[in-house]
């Protein structure tokens, strides 16, 4: 019973963790809260759906079972590229004014939601393919080409190529997969492949395989991001800019590149979270909104600039949600006094559990206003 509850909590917490990880890294680095983060998750979830349908085509049918794993990479790339575009066009202009960024990203989230509703997914995919090619094709040329005067033209022609590729692939997908050729605001469903259905029995308790898969995805993402931040050169640069932007700039770190990279990675993680979300339930334009406030709570509770805080906070919130929302305290301790059990029953729905958890977080913040693991500093502002 306890194990069951713990497992559910960990599963809820792991979706939160992947999503909040991206949010927390970006927030730590740039002080920017991205209200479009939920919509980037939504894009990831839709990517899973599109990948699934493409893998149902006759050519790819034999590999159908692997589509979930492929879609994790796709989702990372799709959301990451949209994030990079967002950073390059909007957020870069708003550094130093976090509240304005908040509003602008909300605008972006509205546009993304409506985009999914009113543009056929096939052409949406085409657009994203052309974005990916357009952004990355110029970077593959050697530095010799880049320094020449004609690089402008190379960039320009690669965007033309990208546009062509996008239109072609969009048409190709829409003609071969009829489900993707029409725009629809309805929710879609991702069905897990056969090997992910059913349950696994460990220690006499049955665990659904999809949830185990989500926990594994989370584990891999967390390990990968920790290794990247702590072992790689770019990770070191990101940490340096997080600690002191001006000083890093003086020492020759390109903060601009670091910003783009971090935002891309943060958004990509949202995409990975989107894959997990799509495995849990149906996918619609509003799917991100259900998770985004949970992510914010994780960031507030965990404090900034510390992965450990994010991990603790998201599992804490996940386990608490399950404990309160499913009224499990009652089954663990059946003969508790009546007023207490009435209170617990009152809060024993998912929505009321949120109410309770918010109250708990506000109480917690009365004692530790900067979260679980605050950054130490002597600034007045912090």
């Amino acid at each position: 019973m306890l194990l069951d509850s713990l497992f559910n909590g960990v599963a809820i917490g792991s979706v939160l963790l992947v999503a909040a990880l991206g949010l927390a890294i970006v927030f730590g680095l740039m002080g920017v809260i991205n209200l479009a983060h939920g919509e980037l998750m939504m894009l990831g979830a839709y990517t899973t759906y599109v990948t699934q349908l493409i893998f149902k085509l006759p050519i790819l049918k034999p590999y159908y079972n692997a589509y979930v794993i492929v879609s994790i990479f796709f989702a990372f790339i799709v959301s990451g590229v949209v994030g990079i575009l967002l950073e390059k066009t909007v957020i870069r202009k708003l550094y130093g004014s976090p509240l304005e960024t908040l509003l602008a990203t909300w605008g972006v989230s509205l546009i993304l939601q409506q985009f999914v509703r009113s543009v056929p997914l096939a052409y949406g995919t085409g657009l994203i393919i052309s974005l990916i090619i357009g952004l990355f094709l110029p970077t593959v040329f050697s530095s010799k080409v880049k320094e020449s005067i004609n690089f402008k033209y190379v960039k320009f022609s690669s965007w033309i190529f990208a546009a062509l590729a996008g239109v072609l692939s969009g048409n190709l997908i829409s003609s071969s997969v009829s489900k993707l050729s029409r725009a629809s605001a309805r929710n879609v469903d991702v069905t897990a492949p056969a090997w992910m259905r059913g349950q696994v029995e460990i220690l006499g308790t049955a665990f659904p395989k999809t949830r185990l898969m989500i926990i594994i995805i989370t584990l891999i993402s967390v390990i990968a991001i920790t290794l990247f931040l702590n072992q790689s050169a770019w990770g070191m640069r990101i940490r340096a800019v997080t600690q002191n932007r001006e000083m890093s700039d003086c020492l020759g770190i390109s903060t601009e590149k670091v910003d783009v990279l971090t935002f891309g990675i943060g958004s990509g993680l949202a995409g990975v979270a989107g894959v997990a979300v799509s495995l849990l339930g149906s996918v619609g334009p509003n799917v991100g909104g259900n998770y985004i406030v949970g992510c914010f709570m994780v960031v507030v509770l965990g404090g900034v600039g510390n992965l450990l805080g994010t991990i603790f906070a998201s599992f804490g919130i996940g386990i608490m949600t399950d404990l309160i929302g499913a009224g499990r305290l009652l089954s663990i301790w059946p003969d508790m006094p009546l007023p207490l059990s009435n209170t617990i029953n009152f809060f024993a729905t998912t929505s009321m559990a949120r109410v309770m958890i918010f109250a708990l977080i506000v109480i917690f913040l009365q004692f530790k206003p900067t979260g679980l693991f605050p950054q130490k500093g002597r600034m007045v502002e912090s």
Partner: protein
Amino acid sequence: MEFKNLKLSKKTTFVIWVIIIAFIIAAPSILPVFRLNLLGRYLSLAIVALGVDLIWGFTGLLSLGQGIFFALGGYCAAMYLQITSSSEFPNNIPEFFGLYGVDNLPFFWEPFRSPIFSLFAIWVIPALVAGMLGFLVFRNRIKGVYFSILTQAALLVFFNFFNGQQKLINGTNGLKTDVTQFFGQMVGSESMQRNFFWVTALLVIAAWFFSKWVVKGRFGNILIGIRDDEPRVRFTGYNPVLFKTIIFSIAGGLAGISGALYTVQSGIVSPQFMTVPFSIEMVIWVAVGGRGTLLGAILGAVFINYAKSLVSEALPASWMFIQGGLFILVVTALPEGVLGWVQGEGPRNLLQRFGLKRKIETYPSLEIKNEIEEIKK
């Protein structure tokens, strides 16, 4: 962050007010009832926008949860109307209670039998809730983005709570007001709606004078000080927590009044008033109108909502795109809003661009703008 303190000149303010008042007086005779009702609703939204302008434009607190106080005001008004016109229902309580097997009025609704109490509750309860929430948050020096997302979370929490409580407040269905009685007349009737329009128009003007009075003088100066440099205000010996709490609860009270007026004119209050998008929209009205100019909040609320209803009637799908674009445009290109742009250097820059006005390169502008020096080099 650079943000000039915008002061509209007396002349502009006067001209705009003359136009507004003339329009309000003319509206009932030129607009059809449906449009008049819409205008009345949007005017009531102008009051909540004034509150947002007070906390965001003047004090720098971006609250994404004004919908809480808006809806609380609406619920207070709707419950009073429901209770007073429930005499023909069993147990003398509103009809919906019967559906969930509730026989007695829940105790916290009991005072709402009195009209005077309800009249106060409409703005006092939201103000108290705002003050309490604000105090708990401000006390810990939580500010900036943290404050914004906490208010958003609070909004979602209230939404969930109201959505789930069928037995206390009719849950998702909300409380209807248009078939209730008020002064012996149906609230939804045409003559009643006309009266509500007048009341709303008067209250908008009153709320504007009140806000003007609040930001005038030393109190207003401290608010602006908090916006621009809070630690310095603290080091000078003032307690920012107190001022922030006061202004936040004033904004909450204004939101409550606005919610009550909106409810009686739209005929229903429901948890939909507490959805996340609606509360963020309130901020964009102020941003488009011009933050820190109280008049901008009123104009922004009325015009954007009118545009919204017109666009949604013609092209339903496109409003989201337009609104999203508006959010991005207004923060990147027009950070001072339309009124700020008109009052500042906007028109001059526009005329310069078309070569209709000479560039000024006098001493004061040199001092203000570093770009001009760079151009000279």
